Each structure stands twice: as structure tokens, then as C-alpha cells.
């Protein structure tokens, strides 16, 4: 039965999991875990923190699944929770850093780009220059961009996650894109 669940639509899995079926919940976790992990990594800049975020989101998701009005939208919901938790973690990390000093606020396993020649060969120049440009963006623009392009969220969803207006999202996203375009064209 467990493997059978893997071909079953999200809404069915979400319905079963909301009823208490842990096998269905596990199936959902495996289905969207990688996307959640990729998103959390891009937002927090840390592999370890990203896995913590994924685990915390799964715990919260189990607890709140029966409140989900649209079971078919469980994927977007999981990604939205991932975005929120990642940003909360960044906020806590920054608060901690302000107590301990600036040199401590960069995680040892930073995902941020610092492209070297080896990376360029492996990843392709396009991605490399994008990563470099992304790391240079102001934090609030980067978050908007990642939530849009990696989490696939709408303006309204991003606005809710970041607690700003949709108009602010539109502005930050546009500024982020323009800066990124400029940076990447300088690379060439």
C-alpha cells in the first residue's frame, strides 16, 4: 500500500493524512521534501538549517493539515510554510549575530555562490553568474526573488509570508530583477 500511495494525487494524500494516515503523510513528505529543501537552502544559505526547517515544517504540517481548506493545494501550502520558517530562522540568526558579532553570522556551510572557476565549469556560466548576482542583492529583494522563482509563490502569498503589501512585493521583485539582469550582463 505504501508504494501505491506514490501515484496518488495530492488531494487524496492530504485527505488521508488529515484523517491520521501517517503513510500518506510520509508520501507527501517524500514527494515535496526535495523542493522544500532546495527552497530552504536558497533562503537560509545553510544546508543544516535547511534540513531543520524541513523537519519543523513537517511537524507543523501534520498538526495543521486538517485545517487546510483546499487539500489539492497542499504543495503550495508546504512551500509557503517552508518560506516562512526559513525567514524566521534568518531573523533569529541575525538577532543572535548582533549579540555575538558580525563574523559569526555567516554559516560555515554557506550555500551562497562565491563562484570559482571550477564551479563555472560544472554548473554552467549562467547559473554561476546568477548565484553571484543573487548573493549581492539586498536581503529583502533576494527573499522576494527566491520566494517567487524557487517557491513559485504568488505576489499575495509572498506578501503574507514577508508581512508586506503586494505592492511592495511587486516593487522589490522588479528591483531585484533589474539588478540581477545588470549584474549578469556585466559578467559577460
Amino acid at each position: 500500500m505504501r508504494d501505491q500511495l506514490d501515484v496518488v494525487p495530492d488531494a487524496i494524500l492530504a485527505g488521508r493524512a488529515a484523517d491520521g494516515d501517517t503513510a500518506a503523510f510520509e508520501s507527501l513528505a517524500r514527494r515535496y521534501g526535495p523542493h522544500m529543501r532546495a527552497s530552504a537552502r536558497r533562503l537560509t544559505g545553510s544546508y543544516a538549517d535547511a534540513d531543520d526547517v524541513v523537519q519543523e515544517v513537517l511537524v507543523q504540517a501534520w498538526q495543521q493539515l486538517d485545517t487546510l481548506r483546499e487539500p489539492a493545494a497542499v504543495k503550495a501550502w508546504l512551500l509557503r510554510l517552508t518560506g516562512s520558517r526559513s525567514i524566521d530562522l534568518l531573523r533569529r540568526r541575525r538577532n543572535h549575530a548582533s549579540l555575538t558579532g558580525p563574523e559569526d553570522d555567516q554559516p560555515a556551510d554557506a550555500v551562497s555562490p562565491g563562484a570559482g572557476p571550477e564551479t563555472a565549469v560544472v554548473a554552467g556560466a549562467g547559473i554561476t553568474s546568477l548565484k553571484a548576482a543573487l548573493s549581492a542583492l539586498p536581503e529583502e529583494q533576494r527573499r522576494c526573488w527566491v520566494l517567487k522563482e524557487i517557491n513559485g509563490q504568488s505576489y499575495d502569498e509572498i506578501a503574507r509570508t514577508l508581512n508586506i503589501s503586494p505592492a511592495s512585493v511587486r516593487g522589490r521583485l522588479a528591483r531585484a530583477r533589474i539588478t540581477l539582469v545588470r549584474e549578469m550582463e556585466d559578467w559577460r
Partner: protein
Amino acid sequence: MSTSLHQAIMAVDGVTEVFPARNLWQRLPGRAASLLQRNNADADDSALVEVRDLGGRTEAAVRIGVSSDARTPEVVRAVAAAIRNHLSPADVSVKVTVVRIAPARGAAGV
């Protein structure tokens, strides 16, 4: 007592498991679900059967799993009788809650 209360309950036909009295958790299928099942005859009954004093009368409460082959209403009545029997001559009221209905462990199926 020669047999524990846990054994007395498990001896009732149709009972598959006795669950801890507090905080029911479940693990995902990959982990051993037997965390919730006690096979040990010397199992600490106090963790399985919650005994409360309700204005002079003692209430013994237990949570069980029932086999899908059994008839649940009959099983819970038999369990209540077994508990009362085991605790007599103490005058207890009994609370039995079925939290799971599934094939007995080792049977074919999920």
C-alpha cells in the same frame, strides 16, 4: 497477582494492543510500531491503565487496539469485565477506549 493487568487485558479475545495511558504518538511506518505495544509480562501497569479517584470511586481507564476480525462492541465489554475482575474486590468503574481497529500483528495485510 500472578498475572499483570496488562496480560489480563491482552488475554481477552480480539484485543491486539494495549496503549499507554497518556500522549498517544505514532511513528511513521518505517519505524517499529511496537513502541506502542508491550510484550513484557512485567510491564508497568500504571503506565497502561490510568487510575483516577472520582469522588470516592476509582476509575480505571485503558486504551486498546481491536482486531479487524473481532466484534468491537463485544470486545470492549469483555475487557471491562476482565479489568473489573482483575481489580476486585475493589469497586472500580472502568473506561475502555478503542483507538485502533486493524489486523492482528503478524496477520496478512497492512
